[in-house]
């Protein structure tokens, strides 16, 4: 019920950092196994299931293998940056999670402990800033390797991150407009108060955010920086052993953070749907569960099990998005580079801009009329559904579903434009005109 004493703050914060950081690394390791299993299932295989029950110890085996592997250092690499790059990639990836609230605040005898490592007032800005820092690691790796494939991978990652950061930022703005703040705890609180997960009133922003997040995490269909069929493995071509693993851990931490962000921004974070017992917010020095009609805060005293339940809710939502990440990866082929840029600049950016404008206008009008509560959310939901419908219609109408085979282009090759010339082996009949 009370604020923490400085001593208790230090102790709980250290504990939270320790627990969250170890959990993050454990989950990341586990995700590599899940990814392999899911890819196997999608391809009608079984995947690694030999090390431990259901292959659960496979990440441990992989870790031991990676630690024991030889560290290679290309002779022409820039040694300083070559060693620095994996560290630069992994640090932003693992510390972004610090501002994501993962459960309802826990009331202890020493005070109320927020289930978030750092409830800093800049919340989402911190995430955006650190997520952009991640590109330095990749680009530096590509540059320092002194390898043309690694360099191309680094260049691609830089341009891709820059392109999609714009759409990512613009797709978060609607959330900020509804929340009126940039801290993630307040976003969860606002979704509880509104009675709507933001995925409904902001459906188009959610779609844009998901697509941008895929691009930001360098996952298929946006894995051009790695593009193993063209660039060997892109920026980490020259890396081996634990340095390679660090890029790997960085990639998966990015996925985890992105999934946690999607859950927090659009699926109500740790809130449990259709239940008001988890409406908890740290408001001006006290834990409240809501406001009275007169605007007076109502103090709350939740049990410890609320924290457990809300954490499960958060974990479930995050796991769902992680699975979607993997599901999409094993469904879609890689975009061509021009397609990535086309989608980023000519589709996502104008859509996000237009949507932000339309949404701002709608909110302004609703505020002027004085619409509040459920009706406010319902109108926004309808408006966003309409916007999403228009977007899908414009982007998708009369478009091809099949990839390369374009209907109606079957034609005979007799046309003078396309003369097929290829050597064929033919038996006998020497001296014919073709030779």
């Amino acid at each position, binding site marked *: 019920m009370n604020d923490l004493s400085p001593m208790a703050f230090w102790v709980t914060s250290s504990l939270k950092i320790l627990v969250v950081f170890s959990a993050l690394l454990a989950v990341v390791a586990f995700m590599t196994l899940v990814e392999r299993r899911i890819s196997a299932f999608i391809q*009608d295989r079984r995947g690694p299931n030999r090390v431990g029950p259901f292959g659960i110890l496979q990440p441990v085996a992989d870790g031991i293998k990676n630690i024991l592997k030889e560290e290679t250092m290309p002779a022409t690499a820039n040694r300083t940056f070559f060693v620095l790059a994996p560290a630069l990639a992994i640090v932003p990836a693992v510390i972004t999670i610090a501002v994501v609230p993962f459960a309802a605040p826990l009331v202890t005898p020493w005070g109320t402990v927020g289930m978030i490592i750092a409830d800093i007032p800049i919340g989402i800005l911190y995430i955006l800033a650190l997520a952009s820092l991640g590109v330095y690691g990749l680009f530096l790796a590509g540059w320092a390797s002194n390898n043309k494939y690694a360099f191309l991978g680094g260049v691609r990652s830089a341009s891709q991150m820059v392109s999609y950061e714009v759409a990512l930022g613009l797709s978060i703005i609607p959330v900020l407009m509804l929340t009126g703040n940039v801290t993630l705890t307040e976003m969860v609180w606002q979704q509880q108060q509104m009675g709507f997960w933001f995925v409904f009133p902001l459906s188009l922003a959610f779609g844009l955010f998901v697509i941008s997040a895929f691009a930001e995490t360098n996952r298929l269909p946006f894995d051009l920086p790695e593009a193993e069929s063209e660039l060997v493995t892109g920026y980490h071509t020259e890396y081996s052993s634990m340095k390679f693993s660090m890029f790997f851990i960085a990639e998966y931490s990015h996925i985890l953070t992105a999934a946690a962000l999607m859950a927090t921004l659009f699926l109500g974070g740790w809130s449990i749907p259709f239940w008001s017992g988890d409406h908890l917010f740290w408001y001006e020095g006290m834990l409240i569960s809501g406001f009275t009609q007169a605007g007076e805060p109502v103090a709350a005293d939740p049990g410890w099990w609320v924290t457990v339940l809300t954490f499960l809710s958060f974990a479930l939502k995050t796991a769902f998005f992680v699975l979607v990440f993997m*599901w*999409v990866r094993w469904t879609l082929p890689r975009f061509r580079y021009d397609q990535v840029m086309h989608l980023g600049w000519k589709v996502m950016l104008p859509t996000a801009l237009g949507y932000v404008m339309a949404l701002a206008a709608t909110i302004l009008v609703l505020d002027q009329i004085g619409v509040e509560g459920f009706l406010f959310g319902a109108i926004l939901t309808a408006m966003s559904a309409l916007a999403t419908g228009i977007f899908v219609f414009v982007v*998708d109408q009369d478009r091809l579903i099949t990839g*390369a085979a374009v209907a109606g282009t079957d034609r005979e*090759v007799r*046309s003078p434009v396309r003369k097929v010339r290829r050597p*064929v082996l033919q038996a006998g009949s020497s001296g014919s005109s073709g*030779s």
Partner: protein
Amino acid sequence: MPANNYRVRVAEASDMAATVKVMRRPEPGETSYIRATLKGMALTFKHLVNPDKVTRQYPEEQPDLSPRWRGTHRMEVHADGRPKCVACGLCPTVCPANCIRLVGGEDDQGNRYPIVYEIDEFRCIFCGMCQEVCPVEAIHVGVHFENAEYTRERFVYDLDRLMEQDHPSTLLWDPSDPRSE
């Protein structure tokens, strides 16, 4: 002009069959991202939950080998434990890979027997001609494939090793019964 009377010719367009499908790459604005993605995800989801997987869980689930599978050799033995081989020398003669080493001997009753009988399973091409040619049905290729060893030397099977093998012998192709009926 190559000596074998084959020649490399450049095919003209008029040589081609009437319907050659020319694929045109769609421009970026032409393709559907959304419906195609959803369609693909529906397909992969079907496979994700499909319990019918193709992977064989190998050590537990053994493959069904054909009765005509030709694997590593075995030597048939008499009831008293002597090898059936009479050291006639036909198998090293017929062996196309020259992988059988046979030194024959004769005991005091005038029975010929192998003193040294070694098969280098690395050289062997598993053609089964040794089994086909054997007049006393002593040497056989076997229905067996698990042959891992720690050293290369262990792949030269000596007589004792060949006699120890207990996997089934290969059913050779019978010209009078070509379908094994």
